[in-house]
């Protein structure tokens, strides 16, 4: 029980108290940053006096709060941790947080935090983020991978590792930063993969991430739009054991209500799935039987409203594909669809022999 209580109080850490304390103790140097004008906060002027990392975090947190920037505390912490060469503020040694920032560092803080002030996502501001055990480069407007997609990779990995031993190939449609393909390749050493995206920026970013992780021997990246150029996809790959995608699945009507971070910075083509959010999904499922090997599988991340719609649509429209199951994400939403190609006739004959 004691443990429980301790955990509850630990859930939120507060740096604000700490900042105030330092302010009192310092007393002396009156940087512009502590003047009332800055408290009102349009955009804090770069301080003339020296300030510590902890003070900078608090200053920007409050500034973000006032300007209605989402996740003010996390934003300020992640940006400053990044400038101190760490991933999270918790992993920065306590002494470094209470040391003065150099002039150069202070300017960097101001430069990056100003970007965040314009609602640019933190991942774009610091130009990187973690996905599973990878650290990936991030660049606007390429879609920022969401945590749900980490779970999608988990599903594919579980299946691939079950039938290990044979050489597998997978195809990813809409690779964005390359998160899915690169994670799969990293975890399954004998796997090969194709990654496609309709956006040149995404293709470039996936390529960059691939080289950074040294996975260039096993990944082919192509600039192809599956909606317009199905033929290229089919000529490129066949007999794939897994077709994975986090396709654009938002309903067009939901686009307008997206938070500004997403709406203004991320590629709409990676988000907007048409009226029912199924445009790209339907195209993928139509092509799947020609791309997959016998008993190959499709793994999709979708909107929670989608699974029943997809099941029905496939039953009517794609003969060779079977709907296997719907899986839920960490928060319990129906989020992933798994489908499987039927055992082909050729294989049946082989079995008989």
């Amino acid at each position, binding site marked *: *029980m004691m*443990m*429980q209580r*301790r*955990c*509850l109080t*630990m*859930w939120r*850490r507060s740096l604000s*108290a*700490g900042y105030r*304390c330092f302010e009192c103790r310092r007393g002396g140097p009156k940087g512009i940053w502590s003047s009332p004008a800055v408290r009102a906060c349009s955009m804090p002027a770069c301080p003339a006096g020296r300030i510590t990392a902890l003070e900078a975090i608090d200053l920007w947190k409050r500034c973000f709060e006032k300007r209605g920037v*989402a*996740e003010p505390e*996390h*934003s300020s912490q*992640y940006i400053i941790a990044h400038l101190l060469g760490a*991933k*999270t503020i*918790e*992993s920065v040694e*306590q*002494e470094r947080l*209470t040391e003065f920032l150099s002039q150069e560092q202070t300017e960097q803080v101001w430069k990056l935090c100003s970007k965040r002030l314009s609602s640019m*996502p*933190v*991942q774009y501001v610091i130009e990187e*983020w*973690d*996905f*599973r*055990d990878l650290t990936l480069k991030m660049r606007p407007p390429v*879609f*920022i991978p*969401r*945590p*749900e997609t*980490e*779970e999608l990779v*988990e599903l594919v990995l579980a299946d691939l590792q079950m039938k290990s031993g044979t050489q597998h190939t997978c195809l990813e449609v809409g690779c964005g930063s390359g998160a899915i393909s690169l994670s799969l390749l990293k975890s399954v050493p004998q796997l090969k993969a194709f990654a496609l995206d309709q956006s040149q920026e995404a293709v470039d970013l996936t390529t960059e991430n691939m080289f950074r992780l040294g996975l260039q021997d096993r990944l082919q990246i192509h600039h192809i739009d599956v909606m317009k150029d199905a033929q290229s996809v089919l000529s490129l790959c066949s007999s794939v054991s897994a077709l994975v995608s*986090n396709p*654009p*699945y*938002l309903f067009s009507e*939901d686009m307008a209500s*997206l*938070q500004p*971070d*997403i709406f203004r910075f*991320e590629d709409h083509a990676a*988000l907007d799935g048409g009226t029912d959010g199924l445009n790209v999904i339907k195209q993928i499922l139509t092509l799947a039987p020609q791309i997959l090997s016998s008993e190959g599988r499709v793994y999709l*991340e979708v*909107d*929670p409203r989608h699974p029943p719609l997809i099941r029905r649509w496939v039953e009517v429209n794609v003969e060779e594909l079977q709907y296997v199951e719907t899986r839920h*994400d*960490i*928060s319990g*939403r129906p*989020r992933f669809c798994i489908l499987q190609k039927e055992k082909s006739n050729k294989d049946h004959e082989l079995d008989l022999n």
Partner: protein
Amino acid sequence: MAYRKVANLFPRGKEFAFSLWIPYFSKTRGVISQSVSLHGYAYSLYSKRTLHTTIPLLMKLLSVEELFAKRALQDHLRKMETEYSECLKAVSGSVTEEQCSEELRAKRTKVSLLSPLIQSITELGNKEKDMTETEMLLKDEDPGLRELAELERETCLQDIHDLRQKILDLLIPEEEEDLSDLILEVTAGVGGQEAMLFTAEVFDMYQGFAQHHGWTFDTLEHMTSEIGGLRHASVSISGFQSYKKMKFEAGVHRVQRVPKTEKQGRMHTSTMTVAVLPQPTEISFTINLKDLKIETKRASGAGGQHVNTTDSAVRIVHLPTGVVAECQQERSQLKNKEKAMKALRAKLYSMKLEEETSKRYNQRKVQVGTRGRSEKIRTYNFAQDRITDHRIGMTVHDVKSFLLGEDLLEKMNSSLQEFSNQETLMELLGEDSQHGS
């Protein structure tokens, strides 16, 4: 030569502390034989040993030779030999009888468990025979031969000493948890900011200790205070013998000094608590996923592509017990979930162990502290520049070096290990004599 100080734990008869541990071997035989098949060690459920000497005993360490001079030890070794040969006979004899296969399997396990010990005992016997022969040669008339015999005698003595040490080590049962990794929890106790500052120093000390041993040190939770102190932190540590060593660090650590925060130069006494929880393997302890409630920032709203957040914290509640674990150390939500699960498993596992332990003690109607966690184990006195471990009454000097977590802490830790080993050995022998009488 590792010289040991002298102790006599026997004459205290029924009063000495570890007599509390002795008599349940026979009572829990069923449990023990079960654990043989599970974990391959007959003594694995024997006790949760973390040094239980709460009363400062006149604890002294016996030398190897002194221990071997004890009749109880010789009796015990003979008993082991008899047991071994009986089991061996049973195993090699009745191969066809299927109905007692369960018993047979237990005996087979016993044989393989005991064989290194028996081998060493045999070797020791041979060496001792050699020794007698060599001593005969020492009386020879040829001075050259006598010189040779003198040399021979020295190596013989060394070999005998080494073999005896080995036998003692083999007698100490390995605990199941000794092989596991661990979760370390440090929490500030009495003393406000000063206690938190001290907690940060102890945290750094164990980080240094882990580095010193080449263990991994992976922070799960880290809650700092305003002035650079630490309210609470938990860490996953893994590496060779990590739990075996760290378990002796669990308990209340006390600091006596003039705090940085003190204006009038008064001496303060503050405390912090160290908890060391064995980290169970996936196989030895499973959690039903249905019992878990996982909370994230993304739990409300649409999630997925609708939301972009940098808050990847994960909080897991184990519904049947209400135990909570959380992690926000990582930028990846999945990694945070994995780490929180790790912490949760350790918490639940240690609760289970505590429950088992206390159940056993209740059966015997004996009061024992909860694995030493609430006991004051060590004092760091800055004014006198000393660290005293109250369990074994050992004092070392140079607090600053000690807090590096290197040789001085290692020295203290090894002494604790030695005392603990001897305690166990005495339990073992004491039990024999009880059964015998």
